[in-house]
């Protein structure tokens, strides 16, 4: 049917209205002079012209101790201002620095950019949510952002408003669907606002389930559509430095006379692959940073373990303290805070991963013959062939959970490195490789189902083996060769070229592992103890080349620790990295020359201090003033999380120690048997909640006899501690240790309050047998601020005799809590070094 006039008019008007109405609504002008709340909040925060500004995303909030940074680089705690926004990347940081900081006339002296570098080099918003945040931070004139981030010809401010409000509409719609559904289905029925109740339920549940990124959203105050938004957040990294905001950030900071430092933030090792930047781009970026006189540091080098992370990307309190301490030290070493130029950063090494193949015949493993163990679900199977690489042997050698052994149930691998509750007490389909064999449990609830399955041993085919902790383990099995085929030659700096292999060998007899470049001569890997290494001088390859590492059938299990090639000035690392290695020995076996002297009975509680009758529901407390007994003032400890709760004083009631030392005074009365030392006061409640002094019992103070506190060590005045460091403790070092470091805090006594710092000195003596390697003293007063370190004249041997470290403080010294005692090697390579002995066979790729 032919349409009439009305139909024709509607044919045009209806679609135009359908499109134009929302576009016009979304594109309406913003009310004049309104600033987005987040932006306004930032301007208020920087109104006092902070000396230090920190830019970045959520990691700035979780990873950095701002108080510690302020202490080191600002004149007052409020002179540092974190201007970070979750889920944002460099374009937003650029806009914040330009508009919220410099645009409001502020001139911070130091700008820190803390982030993973894929986000630093991102030029495009990671999604519509970040785009909306960016628009809310932009000013009226933004040629850089319009060109690099939004792209020319996007339609200008009107179109940006349309896009921003479009995203807000989408977010609100999907957020309503989510919150209303959860509110109706799961929120308590008595509430009025079911949508709000649903939001309150949904946000934490989805965050718990899908991780921190589930909560990225438009306004940073409410979840929008968590799961979908999370999928949008992947930084878009350009492959050209000039396309990124980095040159503009550098120029802006330089123009305004600020020191600018980019801090390459660490993430959990197992997640690093999600945050990688193309190596050449990173190298270009560091080059540009150096050229601009700004700073760069790569804190991934700290290799923080899983215990330092709260999730895949964010640090917890432990990690934050460790990272901030390292950051402060490195910033100071770089010259931050000074007037001179910042020290240039070493250029990141660009490596090309080789293709790795394994050939040869690894040991034939016996059939697994399970026999019933004594516990509910425990089974055992012998495998004596693999004793050298059992979990305990690898752990005690400091190598970690890197065993390549597989135990397969009907061809499916069981979980390795299990804990006892996974194979003794319950059937979790897991196994642990012990010295005498394997202990395991079958899958499923029935322990006796073992008879219905077939169990076989195997060796992992993965090269490198990815460990549960996110690390890599490069194994060369006895009787096999690992060949690394490099697709291209070496294009690094000039100088003597070479290849270096460092490894650990476990088990084996007479066989000698070897390394060979291409079809060249084989060079043996030689060394003492567990360590083997070879350094080959060679001609730098100009095209494809290969490196083969072999161990004969009687040559033991070879675990590669570092494989590098290149010149000393420009090395390439295939296995391991450029950093040196360090082991802490503070937890090594320690003996003290004498037991601590008793502090004596406490007598009657000190009048006038808190104590007496218990309030309802609490326990009675009494307070003793320990002033005059020369004890440490624990207020210095309570303020630092890593040493909090490490008071050395214990309380004995009628000869039996009270069980619980707590940190805060108000916690003492909440349960019987608690005590704390705050400053010089000892606050105690009886083991039954009665008040000491009124319950007829005798109380005495003693010093904790083991001097241990969560892996830290006290030395009481006059103490001499002898640390015996067994060879296995030093095994993880890639080379012989040549450096020793001490960290700690000398805690002033109550009597010393207000008096000058101690002039007492500690003594450190290192010997192997009677052979003394170091005998030195160090001031205790600045132990915390300037941890002493010594370079040894000759390296410490790694066996077979233990290394003895004798640490002592004089009787007039304050109580001293040692937080670290470490030996390390600098990781020096011998690439291209003159051939030495049989390990340096002539080789031509």
């Amino acid at each position, binding site marked *: 049917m032919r*349409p009439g006039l009305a139909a024709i008019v509607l*044919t045009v008007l*209806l679609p135009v209205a359908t499109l134009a109405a*929302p576009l016009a609504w979304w594109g309406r002008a913003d009310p004049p002079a309104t600033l987005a709340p987040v932006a306004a909040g930032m301007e208020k925060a920087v109104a006092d012209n902070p000396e230090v500004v920190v830019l970045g995303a959520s990691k700035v909030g979780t990873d950095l101790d701002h108080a510690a940074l302020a202490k080191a680089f600002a004149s007052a705690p409020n002179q540092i201002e974190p201007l970070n926004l979750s889920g944002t990347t460099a374009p937003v940081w650029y806009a914040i620095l330009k508009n919220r900081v410099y645009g409001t006339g502020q001139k911070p002296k130091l700008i820190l950019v803390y982030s993973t570098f894929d986000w630093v080099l991102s030029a495009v918003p990671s999604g519509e949510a970040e785009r909306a945040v960016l628009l809310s931070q932009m000013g009226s004139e933004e040629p850089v952002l319009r060109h690099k981030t939004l792209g020319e010809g996007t339609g200008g401010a009107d179109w940006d408003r349309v896009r921003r409000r*479009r995203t807000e509409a989408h977010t609100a719609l999907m957020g309503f669907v989510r919150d209303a559904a959860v509110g109706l289905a799961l929120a308590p029925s008595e509430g009025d606002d079911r949508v709000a109740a649903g939001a309150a339920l949904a946000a934490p549940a989805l965050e718990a389930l*899908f991780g921190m990124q589930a909560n990225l959203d438009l306004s940073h105050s409410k979840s929008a559509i968590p*799961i979908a938004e999370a*999928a949008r957040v992947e930084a878009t990294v350009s492959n050209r430095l000039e396309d990124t905001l980095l040159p503009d950030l550098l120029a802006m900071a330089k123009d305004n006379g600020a020191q600018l430092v980019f801090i390459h933030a660490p993430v959990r090792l197992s997640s690093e692959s999600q945050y990688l930047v193309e190596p050449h781009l990173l190298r270009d970026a560091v080059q540009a940073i150096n050229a601009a006189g700004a700073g760069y540091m790569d804190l991934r080098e700290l290799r923080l373990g899983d215990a330092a992370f709260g999730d895949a990307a964010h640090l917890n309190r432990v990690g934050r303290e460790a990272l901030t301490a390292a950051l402060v030290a490195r910033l100071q070493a770089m010259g931050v805070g000074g007037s001179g130029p910042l020290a240039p950063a070493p250029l990141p090494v660009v490596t090309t991963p080789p293709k790795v193949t394994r050939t040869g*015949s690894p040991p034939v493993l016996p059939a697994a013959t399970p026999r019933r163990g004594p516990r509910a679900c425990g089974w055992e199977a012998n495998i004596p062939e693999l004793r050298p690489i059992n979990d305990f042997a690898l752990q005690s050698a400091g190598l970690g959970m890197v065993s390549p052994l597989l135990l397969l149930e009907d061809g499916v691998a069981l979980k390795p490195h299990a804990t006892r509750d996974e194979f003794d007490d319950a059937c979790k389909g897991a196994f642990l490789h012990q010295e005498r064999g394997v202990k395991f449990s079958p899958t*499923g609830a029935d322990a006796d189902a073992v008879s219905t399955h077939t169990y076989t041993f195997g060796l992992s085919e993965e090269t490198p083996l990815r460990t549960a902790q996110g690390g890599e383990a490069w194994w060369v099995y006895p009787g096999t060769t690992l060949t690394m085929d490099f697709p291209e030659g070496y294009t690094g700096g000039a100088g003597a070229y070479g290849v270096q292999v460092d490894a650990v060998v476990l088990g084996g007899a007479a066989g000698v592992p070897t390394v060979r470049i291409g079809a060249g001569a084989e060079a043996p890997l030689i060394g003492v103890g567990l360590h083997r290494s070879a350094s080959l001088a060679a001609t730098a390859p100009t095209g494809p080349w290969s490196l083969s590492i072999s161990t004969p059938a009687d040559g033991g299990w070879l675990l590669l620790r570092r494989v590098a090639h290149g010149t000393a000035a420009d090395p390439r690392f295939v296995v391991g990295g450029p950093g040196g290695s360090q082991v802490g020995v503070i937890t090594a076996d320690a003996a003290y020359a004498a037991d601590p002297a008793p502090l004596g009975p406490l007598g009657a509680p000190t009048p006038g201090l808190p104590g007496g009758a218990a309030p309802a529901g609490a326990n009675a407390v009494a307070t003793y003033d320990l002033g005059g007994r020369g004890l440490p003032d624990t207020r210095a400890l309570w303020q630092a999380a890593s040493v909090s709760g490490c008071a050395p004083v214990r309380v004995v009631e009628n000869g039996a120690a009270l069980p619980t030392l707590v940190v805060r005074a108000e916690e003492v009365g909440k349960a019987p048997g608690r005590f704390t030392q705050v400053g010089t006061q000892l606050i105690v409640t009886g083991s039954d909640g009665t008040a000491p002094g009124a319950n007829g019992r005798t109380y005495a103070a003693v010093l904790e006899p083991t001097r241990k506190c969560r892996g830290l060590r006290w030395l009481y005045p006059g103490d001499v501690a002898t640390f015996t460091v067994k060879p296995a403790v030093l095994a993880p070092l890639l080379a012989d240790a040549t450096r020793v470091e001490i960290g700690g805090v000398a805690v002033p006594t109550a009597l010393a309050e207000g008096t000058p710092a101690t002039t007492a000195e500690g003594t450190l003596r290192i010997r192997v047998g009677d052979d003394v390697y170091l005998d030195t003293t160090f001031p205790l007063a600045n132990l915390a601020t300037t941890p002493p370190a010594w370079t040894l004249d000759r390296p410490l041997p790694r066996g077979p005799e233990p290394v003895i470290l004798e640490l002592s403080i004089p009787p007039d010294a304050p109580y001293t809590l040692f937080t670290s005692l470490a030996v390390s090697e600098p990781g020096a390579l011998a690439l291209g070094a003159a051939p030495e002995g049989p390990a340096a066979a002539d080789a031509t790729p």
Partner: protein
Amino acid sequence: MNFVQTEFLWFFAVVFTLYWAWPNRKWQNGMLTVASAVFYGWVHVWFLGLLYLSAVIDYVGGLGMRRYPTHKKLVLGVTLGGNLLLLGYFKYFDFFVENAATVLSAVGVENSLVPLGIFLPAGISFYTFQSMAYSIDVYRGELEPRKNLLDYLLAVSLFCHLVAGPVQRASNLLIQAETPRTFRWDMIRSGLGLALWGAATKIVVADTLSPYVDKIYALPNPSTPLLAAGTLAFAIQILADFAGYSNIARGTARMLGFELMVNFNAPYLATNPSDFWRRWHISFSSWIRDYVYIPLGGSRGSYARVQANTVGAMVVSGLWHGASWNFALWGLYHGLLLVGYRVVTPRIPASLTSMPGARAIATSIMFGFTLFGWFLFRALELHRIAVVLAQDPLAFPADQQVATVVVLAVTAACAAPMILAYLAQKHLLPRLANTQWWLPAQTTGWALCALAMFTFVRMSAADFIYFAF
């Protein structure tokens, strides 16, 4: 190039204009062939080599069969072998090597077989099947071999169906390529509406559900109810994604004067497995029927043979979707469903099948079976399937309860426009189509699709699921 990237809009606008600017069949075919090469070679030019190699093998094979009729079986063998070699190498070689290495290791044979990491060219499964269908039709005498290479190349490589179907029969598209096309406004309007609706279902429905499904299937220990909700979301996602693609393909082709096969017909309303395969990916399931099931013997032969043919054809169908055992398992599952249905159907009393609500019950049961199939399809790893099936189905942590409600709500919200569109197509549009209000309804529908896409579009649309097959 992807149908839902901005470049395609410009590409299609230019092609459409040039195509109709000179309605000469040879010009149009030549121009479309070049445009299809641009479309397909947009990301990797070397993809074109494979496409044309596959096409030329069958083109030459067709001519060879006519020239050497006594050896046409041999020629067919060579052409099919060539196509299967291409497909086998690019799609299945690594799969074969991985499994061979596993089997050899399991029986104690030392080996150094390693996958080559071969890149899978987009759409190779589609165009090799289309090319092979041409050779088989020529062999069967159902189609005359073509001499005109240009027409033949256009039929094989027309960009509308090239990457993800619908899988065209040579007899359908070749004849259209050889026939002059005339410009008709009703075809343009209808094609534009179909393409816009397809893009909207892809962007609004499939891309909204995609991250939910991905997140749930990436969880290390999803509870059974959450996984069920995720699978329901996936069922809607894959329909919106694939049917959306098919509609864009059919719509754009229609605007150029070509009519492609219908690929979907409300598949989740199927009442039994046979019905499902008459409604889901129709072009492919009919290809499998005609070129795999029937050559295997089809419904001829013993009862057991017929069932074996069914299961075999469905396993091939499963493996066509990807070189992974879960796809084979999915095909096997659907094969067994078809066999089971044949076994059970005669035993169902007529009173039961004719009672009120029987169709709704049958549809619900079939949808349940379909969902379980999608779980096998999406899980990707066999051991994960085993773990999920062995876990306590009632374990349901609180945070997963919340996530389940969220996913069900979003799935319902996303499914709603598709359901409304189905009802409108069935009940409203036929009444409207012959009135003067049809045109304003059409243009308003286009505007609504455009507005929905603009509101929901992400910075970069997720790839179409079927690009991976």
